[in-house]
């Protein structure tokens, strides 16, 4: 009995160790598999896209289909670039930031100052709900609000409104989280000196938490930079550089969508995507650096 029990125990332990090893190897393999798509995607973008990228690509407007077709037929590079998309993206991102940052930062401060109160909790929950709303629904909303009633047509303004609603909850959250980490004594010291409340915010809270706020804002921008769906319903797109915010405007992701739908422009898809990816990666790296310095 005793001996039988012992042998059974030894048998099982060898099996258990084997099982443990097997599980670990499986987990390592699956984890490496998880890391592979990002490498494959970036590889594809670089290999297919680097040839088209040049100064012309950044400063010229999109070519028409015919020009692209002749260039492809004679084996040349497609002329023109995506200047209209770059300017459109910049305009819409800046407008979205101008709308979202003040509202978001102020709401974040409101949540920080009113911890535990009913209205603050409600606002926080609603902001969380907004964060989960699919971007295409935000496009619909901005269409119903801005395209139909304000600019009476597709416009850069409508595009940036949908992007700003997308960005808002991220800024609210990062502001509140940042402020929570500032030592309370700092605020109390300022208040004890008789500093008015708005000066405490502007001179103490915001400067102390500045790098945290900036990280949140940059990550928010990197998130809306590649958004396509809401812009399809709001900004629509344009073949030339447009600086009037009440007119249809293009953006880099919108151009990628146009190129994707036009068989003559395929060569431009990858270079535009590469440029977009570089912008997003740079923003990510910068915000990571700022966040790392904070710690």
């Amino acid at each position, binding site marked *: 009995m005793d001996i039988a029990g012992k042998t059974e125990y030894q048998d099982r332990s060898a099996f258990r*160790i084997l099982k*443990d090893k097997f*599980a670990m190897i*499986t*987990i*390592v393999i*699956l*984890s490496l598999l*998880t*890391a592979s*798509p*990002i490498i*494959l*995607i970036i590889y*594809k973008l670089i290999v297919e896209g680097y040839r088209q990228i040049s100064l012309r690509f950044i400063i010229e407007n999109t070519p028409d289909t015919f020009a692209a077709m002749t260039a492809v037929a004679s084996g040349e590079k497609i002329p023109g670039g995506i200047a209209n998309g770059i300017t459109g993206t910049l305009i819409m991102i800046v407008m979205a930031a101008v709308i979202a940052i*003040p*509202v978001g930062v*102020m*709401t974040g401060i*409101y949540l920080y100052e009113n911890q535990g109160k009913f*209205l603050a909790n409600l*606002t926080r*929950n*609603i*902001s*969380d*709900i907004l964060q*989960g*709303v*699919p*971007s*295409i*629904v935000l496009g*619909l*909303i901005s269409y*119903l*609000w801005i395209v139909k009633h304000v600019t009476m047509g597709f416009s850069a303004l409508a595009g940036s409104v949908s992007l700003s*609603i997308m960005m*808002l909850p991220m800024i*609210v959250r990062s502001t509140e989280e940042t402020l929570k980490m500032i030592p309370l004594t700092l605020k109390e010291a300022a208040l004890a000196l008789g500093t008015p*409340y*708005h000066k405490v915010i502007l001179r103490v809270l915001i400067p102390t938490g500045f790098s945290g706020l900036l990280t949140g804002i940059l990550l928010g921008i*990197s*998130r809306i*930079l*590649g958004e*396509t*769906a809401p812009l*399809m*319903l709001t900004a629509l797109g344009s073949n030339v550089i447009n600086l009037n915010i009440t007119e249809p405007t293009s953006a880099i*992701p919108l151009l*990628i*969508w146009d190129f*994707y739908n036009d068989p003559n422009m395929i060569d431009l*898809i990858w270079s535009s*995507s590469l440029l*977009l*990816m570089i912008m*997003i990666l740079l923003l*990510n790296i910068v915000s990571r650096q700022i966040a790392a310095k904070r710690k």
Partner: protein
Amino acid sequence: MMANSDKITKIVLSLAAFLIMAVAGGMIYSLVEGSIPSFRVFGLNFIFSDQWDPTESKENYGALPFIAGTLMTSVAALIISLPLSFSTSLFLGEYFRGTRVARILSLLVDLLAGIPSIVYGLWGFYVLRPLLTDMGLPNQGYGVLTASLILAIMIIPYATSLSNEIIAMVPNDLKEAAYSLGATRLEVIQTVTVPSARSGIIAGYILAFGRALGETMAVTMLIGNSNVVPSGFFSTGNTMASVIANQFGEAEGLKLSSLIAIGLLLFLITGIVNGIGKLIIKKMTS
């Protein structure tokens, strides 16, 4: 006694918070108002009808094909991404916690979240789809499965970020107690780590599912865009988000209203799914 300027500051801050509530309220109002014409014609049957017929004078719209497409792609994406993201969470939070390898892997996974949906779509279209066609997938590689595969990759960072943290937070005492009883690492994971991190892991997957429900561009480019209830994972279909993106351009009148109604349904479904996820997190932290 509060100074006047302090009062003004407080009011301004509250106004910003109220603006967010007003935006959310206005969104619901506009979606409901915009979908009324459609619900007035089709009634609640709109949700259960599988018709999508834009022919003039006998227009007939129903949301069932798109609800089915959305649920099928998202559920499949979650199932496909489950082994990948769960392994990654264990890799980062348990096996190689704090090592350089883990930092690099975690960076790569984070970068997945930064890739725009349209770039995923391009990659799926030009790389994944031909591969699947070679493997014998019908419809030139378009369909629910192709869309789900790309969606699965897209939601990995959302599925892992929460569970990494929770798994790394499991107290060492608990694990060491199990080790001292002679448990192997796998047994510690099975009996200690996963049970004590369970609700956090589930919440992370629910939030990732919520992401998958609303993804638009990549799905639009890969699902095949046919307005029928998909008959299986190899057939083509359309999701709620992709039908809005596809049909919005030429839509007006009843069709536009029906698309807005689909937007409203999508808003409600993602809201409920995210709400459940947040509720689990809240219960866990309190």
